[in-house]
């Protein structure tokens, strides 16, 4: 096999879920496509690496800083939704239920990995809590690490005199009660709300 092909297979294999066979198949697919496709793919990879960086305000990945979400004047500047990673931001954004700002922590506190507050963007969040911010929504995951992060941030944000809320946990849409585990059901019951 040509050296260039082997090099590309080796690089593709480093991608998640891509093994030797898949990488080889991808290389043959690129070679059998029109040359423009291969050039466009290479250029797109180079563009992502060179142009995409974390937004200096919220940590979202963007070609501009501040990113398009931070710079959008139509978004509610008084609410910040805190997420662990950019993929979580995209998930909240795809819900079309939220029109405020975001803050990406870049991870969560982890006792078993020794990951402490200095390894997430917590101070950057507190620095953003100016007079116009009314509420911070903690949308960290419902794991021990996510809860630890939420508890830590709650303390820091309340010291700044800003209201803190936590996203709800409970039964997923379409879920049947008999199949829900005890812990999730307990959370759903304790977090119940009055029907409007």
């Amino acid at each position, binding site marked *: 096999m040509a050296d260039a092909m082997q090099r590309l297979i080796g690089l593709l294999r480093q991608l998640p879920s891509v093994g030797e066979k898949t990488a080889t198949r991808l290389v043959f697919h690129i070679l059998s496509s029109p040359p423009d496709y291969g050039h466009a793919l290479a250029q797109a990879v180079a563009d992502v690496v060179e142009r995409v960086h974390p937004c200096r305000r919220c940590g979202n990945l963007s070609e501009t800083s501040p990113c398009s979400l931070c710079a959008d004047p139509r978004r509610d500047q008084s609410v910040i939704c805190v997420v662990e990673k950019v993929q979580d931001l995209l998930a909240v954004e795809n819900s079309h239920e939220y029109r405020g700002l975001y803050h990406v922590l870049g991870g969560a506190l982890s*006792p*078993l990995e020794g990951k*402490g*507050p200095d390894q997430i963007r917590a101070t950057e969040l507190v620095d953003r809590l100016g007079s116009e911010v009314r509420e911070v929504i903690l949308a960290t995951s419902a794991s021990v690490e996510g809860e630890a992060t939420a508890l830590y941030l709650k303390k820091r944000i309340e010291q700044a005199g800003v209201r803190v809320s936590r996203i709800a946990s409970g039964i997923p849409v379409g879920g049947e009660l008999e199949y829900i585990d005890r*812990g999730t059901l307990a959370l759903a019951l304790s977090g119940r709300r009055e029907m409007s």
Partner: protein
Amino acid sequence: MPRFVRTEAIVLSRRDLGESDRIIQFLSRERGKFSAVAPAARKSRRRFGGCLELFCYTRLRVVDKGPNRLQRLEEAVLIDGHDKIKTDLVAIGHAGYVSELIAAFLGEEDEAESSFDLLSATLHCLDQGPLSTVSLRLLELSVLSLAGFAPHLGSCLACGTESLAGEGMWAYDHSRGGILCTSCASGHENQNIPVEVQCFFRSLRQQGSEGTSVDPQCMHLARSLLAKIIDSYLGKPLKSREFLRKLAGV
């Protein structure tokens, strides 16, 4: 030949495997420390729900594929999620510490009845709130004892002189796992261990954490000595201790 095994176990740790699976490390009273693959645990919440979160006590059904083969988790039912621990940041840190400490001193499938009971009892205590610093030291001593590494504190390792006897600064010899009197310690590089710290350890062993009090300076020395003893046996520092140190600093 693969066989189904039922057991009850506490989740010690978990890490991602591939796109959607997880490897979970458990501690069971009967089976000791073991790991199992939880297929699609990250992708589907239906199969295992919140049963595989850290510190959860669960009833499991695993497929044992034989020696040196990773077991596969088939079913998990939550018995106790220790949810109250998750409402206190320091309690989370302490639960992480005790889990990592006990796991670090256990080999896969070592006999673990006492270690399991210690972990289970500690997690129940943590449901009420964080542990006191005295309780943490007692816990460390207990784990060292269970692992067969209890520090020798009753008398000088070299000459047999009773501890707490005589004046001067005694020392801890990490290579031999015990204390040395003033004269036997001279000329060697050992960690000093004042009489107050020896009294504290003796009181902990005899009366437990309830009847033991200690001044902050002595506690600091006891904590650093036990940390060094633990690290010297494990050959590396515990990550959860680093987490607690960072929490204390904020």
